[in-house]
């Protein structure tokens, strides 16, 4: 991880899981997107002023183990529940971005015993339309430039300079891309059963969505939010799939209004 917090490894379910912890206060567990772009982002420092921000890397991401028996985000969610058990966290504010949002939703349908609030940001996870509908853009058959244009309100915001990264950082980038495909290739970016279980989420839930998200479009996010009882939905202008990175102030304002 590239953040400035305390990085440790813990073992849960026989897996070594990488965890970064920053700040102090009530626990806020942050599940990163598949690209882990949140690590080192400035908004984490803001959150760490009021919360202890705990960022476990899901299996296969960062340097966390990835055994073959883990096949999908449903499987990953058990490991992440094991993590908050192992750390004995209580009244957790659980925030998940993109794939991390999907994992957070999968956790919340299983147990909210340690979860107080749930925030899903441009999350994958459900199938809204029918068999012939493409709910989520197919990022793996699309030209890279098209994917960037869909992901970012301004594709310039998504440019990454790999030439300044060391081998450990590049290994994490390559490993994250691989693990994302391992867990989300098919069914593509969703668990067919998740929508039928979201009624079980019994904690206050907020969906935050980039208005210009071309990967998981706004209508998808709105429909997703209606599957969670009482969930609120906030859209962020001038932002794509990562509103926390493209419109950080508006994102933080929406988030703070819900979690404080």
């Amino acid at each position, binding site marked *: 991880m590239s953040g400035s917090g305390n990085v440790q490894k813990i073992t849960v379910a026989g897996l070594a899981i990488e965890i970064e912890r920053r700040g102090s206060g009530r626990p806020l567990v942050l599940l990163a997107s598949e690209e882990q772009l949140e690590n080192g982002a400035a908004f984490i420092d803001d959150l760490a002023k009021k919360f202890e921000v705990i960022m476990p890397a899901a299996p296969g991401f960062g340097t966390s183990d990835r055994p073959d028996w883990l096949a999908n985000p449903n499987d990953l969610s058990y490991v992440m529940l094991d993590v908050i058990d192992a750390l004995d966290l209580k009244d957790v504010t659980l925030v998940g971005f993109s794939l991390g949002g999907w994992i957070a939703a999968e956790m919340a349908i299983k147990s909210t015993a340690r979860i107080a609030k749930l925030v899903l940001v441009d999350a994958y996870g459900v199938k809204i339309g029918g068999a012939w509908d493409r709910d989520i853009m197919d990022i793996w058959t699309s030209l890279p430039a098209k994917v960037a244009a869909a992901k970012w309100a301004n594709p310039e915001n998504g440019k990454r300079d790999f030439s300044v990264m060391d081998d450990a950082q590049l*290994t994490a980038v390559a490993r994250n891309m691989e693990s994302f495909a*391992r867990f989300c*290739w098919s069914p593509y970016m969703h668990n067919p059963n998740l929508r039928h279980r979201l009624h079980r989420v019994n904690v206050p839930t907020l969906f935050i969505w980039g208005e210009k998200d071309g990967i998981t479009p706004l209508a998808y996010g709105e429909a997703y939010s209606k599957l969670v009882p009482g969930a609120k939905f906030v859209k962020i202008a001038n932002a794509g799939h990562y509103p926390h990175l493209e419109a950080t102030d508006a994102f933080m304002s929406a988030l703070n209004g819900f979690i404080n």
Partner: protein
Amino acid sequence: MRAWHFTEMPYPNLPPLEDLSTMRVSLANKHFDPKIGADLYNRYLDEYMIADDLGLDLLCNEHHQTATCIDVAAPLTAAILARQTSKGRICILGNPIANRGDPIRIAEEMAMIDCISKGRLDVGFVRGVPYEVFAANSNPTETVDRLWEGIDLCVKAWGAVDEPFNFEGRFTHRRAVNLWPRPYQTPHPAIWMTGSSDLENIKKAAARGYVFATFLQPHTKVKWMFDAYRSAYNDTGLPGGGGTAYMPLVFTADTEEEAEKGARELTWYLNAKTEPQYRNPPGYVPVDFNVNALKGTFTGRTDAMRAKTMEFLKEEGVMVYGTPDSVAKQIKRLYELVGGFDHLLMMQQAGWLDHTRTVKSMSLFAKEVYPQIKDLARTQPLNTKAAAE
């Protein structure tokens, strides 16, 4: 040395290639005219029958959603050839077992073709090239493991003659497996595998006595792979059915000028366009390869080949073309450079190369080149100590 005729069954009748962004995966099939396709299928099958008459062996493969190869079911081609030819061996190289997803069905089909051909079948298994995962929607991070689990299951199914068995593996669950028919060859046809960089896979193939084949690689890299193969069996000598195979583009003609013209047409295959997202799906190659890709120091094989001149490709052994004596000389040179090999797999047809010239080239090869190379000894044993170093 055995020589094999091969065509990917291309569909070259496309709009100008410079107007296309890809010939694979997403090229709209409105560009496929079934009437032209019908003629092409029959023509390519005719050429296999001519190759059989000429004493060549017959190699087929399959790809999906691509104009470069309209053979989408190698078992269908092999089944037709099993019935319509009488002499040559028939090799499927190979069954994309990771992408097809039903190993037992493949084992059954191979057994049936082996029976119809009266034991002339060799069975290849391939992981499938990167862009195949899109047509099959197979997870690119799992295809190596699927390949090996599938092979193990086929081999077990072919050999389990006394009673049915169950299998509950990572990817396949089957109950009461009991093949009817079982293969004509006992316990099963020779097994072939392909590879281009994964030395562990190559050694695994060698240790099991499978033939190892590789395509269109510079001779230094072919030697590197063949050495790895040979290092895995150097103590016991060649196991039954094992050996090495190499595929260059091959064109034989009466004059050097004619040969160069024909060979140039074969390069159509090397120039096939593919959009970038299809070339390296996530997890298809190991993480360290992708680290190099991020650094810009790893590019695919065909990209590297495309940039080279024909003369260079000839020097590297990727292309073999010329008069019969010149072709024989080039093959002998290649044989020496890579430490010997057992099977020459010849892509003798690609792109727009028409029937007349394809048949002329393969006939010249069969009559004037093959006799000069047929007696080359099979793969040389490798010096054990040198391999360890």
